[in-house]
């Protein structure tokens, strides 16, 4: 911990305000055109909320899995949960297009998407825990996570190639796999919001359990933590949060890793302030990334997940080097 707490909350407040303002003004189209003003504002507001909530959910999920594995390098994208959720979502899109759209025409795909993402995320976490055990070392966790992510993304790629016959479906699946919040509306937000609020409330309510869990399962158990209950609920809520984030923004990487780790340097390891700050920080990070997506001078829009990865990967490598150096020092 290197700095007092008050400034970080001010910084986050300013970041939130700035990201909201930039989100409103960034992009093609003239906001001052009175005929289009309300439409633009509405679309950009939806886009801001979708990106903010997706980022907040992923960062909160990151704090929870880092607490679960007692490993600061765990995050939904690195341990395969995001890829699992993306695969689940892609399967729903495909099944919906091939099978359900004709048979149940009144059923919108958005309603099923969170369910598919949740199933995928849960499946990924259960497979990881089955293979790696409850407290895998850092290398095993990252390796197994990498393998699972690769597997799920490859399966997602396979589904995408199957979907290429239908151009619209193929594009939707591509956007979903690479991340993006364009075309997200009130219905997506309304579906994801309760999942994210639930995950945040759970995290805040159980934060003191996670604090004690920092001493390891055995010690925490003798101090009164019900390990299996905490573990089970963290797995479930991490899956819910990841599913909500993927529903809103597709596969957006590195948020759950870099935001909690950067904030931990200022706030320390205690989970309650960390969770709140991660929600705000993760939200602002993805909202800024989405502004960047709109501002970068490219022919088409760069996928959101590509931007977060371009920013996140170097920060991740830097964090990895810092942790390795600290390990050697102590």
């Amino acid at each position, binding site marked *: 911990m290197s700095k007092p707490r008050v400034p970080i909350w001010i910084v986050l407040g300013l970041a939130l305000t700035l990201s909201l303002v930039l989100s409103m003004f960034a992009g093609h189209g003239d906001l001052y055109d009175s005929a289009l003003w309300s439409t633009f504002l509405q679309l950009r507001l939806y886009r801001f909320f979708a990106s903010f909530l997706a980022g907040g959910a992923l960062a909160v999920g990151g704090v929870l899995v880092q607490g679960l594995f007692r490993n600061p390098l765990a995050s939904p994208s690195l341990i395969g949960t995001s890829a699992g959720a993306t695969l689940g979502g892609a399967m729903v899109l495909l099944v919906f297009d091939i099978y359900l759209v004709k048979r149940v025409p009144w059923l919108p795909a958005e309603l099923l998407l969170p369910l598919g993402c949740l199933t995928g995320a849960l499946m990924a976490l259960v497979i990881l825990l089955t293979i790696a055990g409850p407290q895998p070392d850092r290398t095993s966790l990252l390796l197994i996570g990498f393998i699972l992510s690769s597997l799920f993304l490859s399966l997602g790629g396979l589904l995408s190639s199957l979907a290429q016959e239908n151009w619209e479906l193929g594009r939707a699946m591509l956007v979903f796999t690479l991340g993006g919040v364009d075309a997200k509306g009130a219905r997506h937000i309304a579906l994801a919001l309760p999942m994210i609020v639930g995950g945040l409330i759970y995290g805040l309510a159980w934060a*003191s*359990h996670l*604090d*004690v869990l920092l001493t390891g399962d055995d010690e925490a*158990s*003798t*101090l*009164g933590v019900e390990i299996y209950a905490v573990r089970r609920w963290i797995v479930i809520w991490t899956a819910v949060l990841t599913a909500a984030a993927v529903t809103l923004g597709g596969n957006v990487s590195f948020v759950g890793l870099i935001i909690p780790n950067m904030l931990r340097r200022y706030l320390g*390891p205690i989970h309650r302030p960390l969770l709140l700050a991660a929600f705000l920080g993760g939200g602002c990070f993805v909202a800024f990334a989405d502004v960047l997506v709109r501002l970068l001078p490219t022919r088409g829009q760069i996928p959101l997940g590509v931007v977060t990865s371009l920013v996140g990967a170097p920060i991740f490598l830097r964090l990895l080097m810092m942790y390795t150096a600290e390990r050697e020092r*102590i």
Partner: protein
Amino acid sequence: MGGGGLTMESLSVRLACGHIVIKDVSLRCERGHITGLIGPNGAGKSSLIKGVLGLLRVSGLLQLDGDNVTEFSSIQRAKKLAYVPQQSRVEGDLMVQQVVDQGRFVHRSPMVRPSRLDREITSRSLEAMGLKLDPMRRFRELSHGEQQRVLLARALATEATTILLDEPTASLDVRQALVLHRHLHSLKVRGYCVVVVLHDLNEVKQLADHVVLLHRGKVERAGTADEVITRQPIIDVYGVELVERGGIVFSLPET
């Protein structure tokens, strides 16, 4: 706190894989005494402690002050039995105060911050261990001796009056070990039931009132240190000769 303590009768402890590591052990660890568990590597000392703490499955009778420990919820158990590991696996940059606060976890609602009473108890626990540390210091930056005393302070903060320690002096120098002995002795005088796993037989003689020699998951011998650490059981269990030549004894200065 007079009388009472831990009672085990025909107690067996098994690992998660089902392997039995302690078989039909019967022993008593009284309040106001320090009970030393000794034995070679793999004798089952740490497993016995973990069984008592509910970290491993047990069968048989296990009572604390007449109450059946196996019927305790994890909260009840944490309020009555405290654990000090050989070395804590504390992750992250937890500070001394935060580590000792963990001892109050079981006494407060998860949503509530530590109260004034919690703060008083944690300060008292740190004082009882003679620790004049900055509570904002990082736990990982402390010496092993200071870490052990912080962990003991955390155990005191739980207000449990039965404390189980697993090789607490294994990585301490002679002075730090003697300081820890003095604190354990003061707990004993205050009526605590102290159970400590030890490797050093000289240390056991200095520290423990009651010694239990474990071998292959069974009690080989129990009694005072002079009764247990004798030639034949030591040959039988450790396969070494016991040679008494006076030796060197260390003590802390009076001041």
